[in-house]
C-alpha cells in the first residue's frame, strides 16, 4: 500500500535525493511521505524526486537540548519549491550568529544529517540539513 516509507525516504535523502509524492488527482506534492495525498487524501500518487530547493520560513537556536543532543544548534523550517515544508537543521551557519535577517527568507538546498541509533529510536535516523546559498 505504501509507495514511499520513511526508510526509503531516509535512504534516498542520505544519497542526496529528496523524494516526495505527487498526487495524480489534484497535482499537489506531499513530503515527507505519508499514505495519502496531504491535500486531497487520494492514494493515487507516485514517487517523484523533488528539486531539493527551498526558502527558510522560521528557525530557533536550541540552547537547552534533549538527552543525546549537544546544544547549541539551529532548528528551522523551510518551504520547498514544490510547496511542502520540511523541518531540519541548518548546516552552515554558526548558531551564535543566527539572526532573523540572515536566516529567514534565505534560499537553501536540502542536504542530510545521519543520526546514529540512540536510546528510544528504532534505528539510525536521517534529518534534513539545510545549506544556505552563499
Amino acid at each position, binding site marked *: 500500500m505504501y509507495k514511499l516509507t520513511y526508510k526509503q525516504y531516509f535512504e534516498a535523502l542520505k544519497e542526496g535525493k529528496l523524494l516526495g509524492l505527487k498526487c495524480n488527482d489534484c497535482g499537489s506534492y506531499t513530503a515527507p511521505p505519508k499514505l495519502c495525498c496531504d491535500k486531497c487524501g487520494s492514494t493515487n500518487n507516485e514517487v517523484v524526486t523533488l528539486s531539493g530547493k527551498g526558502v527558510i520560513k*522560521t528557525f*530557533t537556536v536550541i540552547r*537547552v537540548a534533549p538527552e543525546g543532543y549537544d546544544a547549541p544548534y539551529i532548528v528551522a*523550517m523551510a518551504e520547498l519549491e514544490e510547496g511542502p515544508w520540511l*523541518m531540519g537543521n541548518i548546516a552552515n551557519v554558526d548558531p551564535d550568529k543566527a539572526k532573523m535577517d540572515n536566516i529567514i527568507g534565505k534560499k537553501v538546498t536540502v542536504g542530510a544529517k545521519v*543520526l546514529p541509533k540512540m536510546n528510544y529510536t528504532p534505528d539510525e*535516523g536521517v*534529518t534534513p540539513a539545510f545549506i544556505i546559498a552563499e
Partner: protein
Amino acid sequence: MRKVCVAGVGMTKFGKSEKSSIEMFAEAAMEAIIGSNIKPSDIQCLYLGNVFGDFEEGQALMAPYAAREIGLSVGTPSLRFEGACASASMAIRDAFVAVAGGFYDVVLAGGTERELAMGTPLATRTFNMATEQYYEGMTGLTFPGVFAILSRLYSKKYGIPLSKLKERMAMVAVKNHKNGAKNPLAQFRKEITVEEVLSGPMIAEPLQLLDCCPFTDGAAAIIITTEEKAKKMVEKPVYILGVGQGSGAPLYRQKDFTLIESRVAAAKTAYAMAGIEPKDIDVAEVHDCFTTAEIVATECLGFFDFGTASEAVEKGETQIGGRIPINPSGGLKSKGHPIGATGAAQAYEIVKQVRGEFVERGTQVEGAKIGLTDTLGGDSGVICNIIYGIKG
C-alpha cells in the same frame, strides 16, 4: 444526551513532591470524593491522565493501582489516558461522553505526573517524544523550540518587531506570576518583572527561561456525574456545557502554525454544543506552556482577532478585571505543568471560579458564570476545550 455535571474537585500543591504519582493522585482524588459527599465505592470508572510514569518512576499500568489505592472496587474499570500535556482534559472529556451517553453515572477523572524525578536532559527528551519522531523530533526540536519557531513566524506574519513581541510575551509571564503568587497551590508564588523575563538565560531563541513553564510534580481530580446525582451530592453543581477535541498534524504539515487549526476546530465544537460564543466566556484557563502559546491560544479561541492578542495583553485585557481574564490560577507558567494532571487542574480552577470560591484568595473573577479550559497536547496534536457553567 444527558446533562452532565462536576461535583467535587481536588488538587495537590504543585512543585517538587516527595510522594509517588499514585500517592499524589490518591490525595487529589480523595479530596474530590469527599467534596462530592460520596464513597469510593460509588465510582463506576477511573479515567487517569499520565504521560511519562514509565520514565519518571519506571511505572507503567498506573490506572488500576491508583484505583485500588483509593478504594475503588475490584470490578471498577480503570483506564490510562495519554494525550501528552492534554491527557487529563481528554480523560474529563471522555468521562463527559460516558456519562452523557448513559453508560456510567459517576466517573472519577484526573491525572498525575512526577516530572522533576527525571532531571532536565531526560525530561527534555521525553517531552520531545510528543513531537512527530521521524521527520521532526530527530532535528533535536524541544518544546521551547516549537514555540520559539512559532514566535518568529508570528512576528513576521503580523509585522510585530520581535523586540516588541518579546516585551508583550514577557507581560504574559508577569501577569500569570502575579495571579500565581496568590495561589497557595502554585509552584512559583513570586511576582516577576518584564526586565527579569528579558534578562533571563536563553532556552530556545527567542524564548528565555521565564517565557517557559517549569517541570512540575502534581495531581488533580474531578468527579463527573449526572445532573440528577450532582444535585444530591453538592450545593452548587457545575455543568459541563460543551466539549471539543481536535487532532493536529505534525508541524511540517501544518506549515504556518500561528493559527492552530485543531484548536479552532475543537473550540468551535465546544461553543456549538454549549450554544454560546467566545464573548460569553467570563474566565478561561488557557494552555500557557510558553508565553507565546497563550497569545496564539486566545486568538484561536476567538477572544481576540488574529494578530491582535499581544496588544491586548499590553492593554491589560487578559488581567483579572480585564475584558477576558486569562489564567487567574497563575496558569502553567506559574502554577506549574505536571502534564498528565494539567487539564484537571485547569478544571479545578474554573469550577471554583464559577462557584465564586476565590474571593478570599483575591483572584475571583467577579460574577463569573461560564468558564473555559483549553489544553494543548504535543505541538497541537491534541487540543481539548471544555466549557463549564453554573446556573443562576
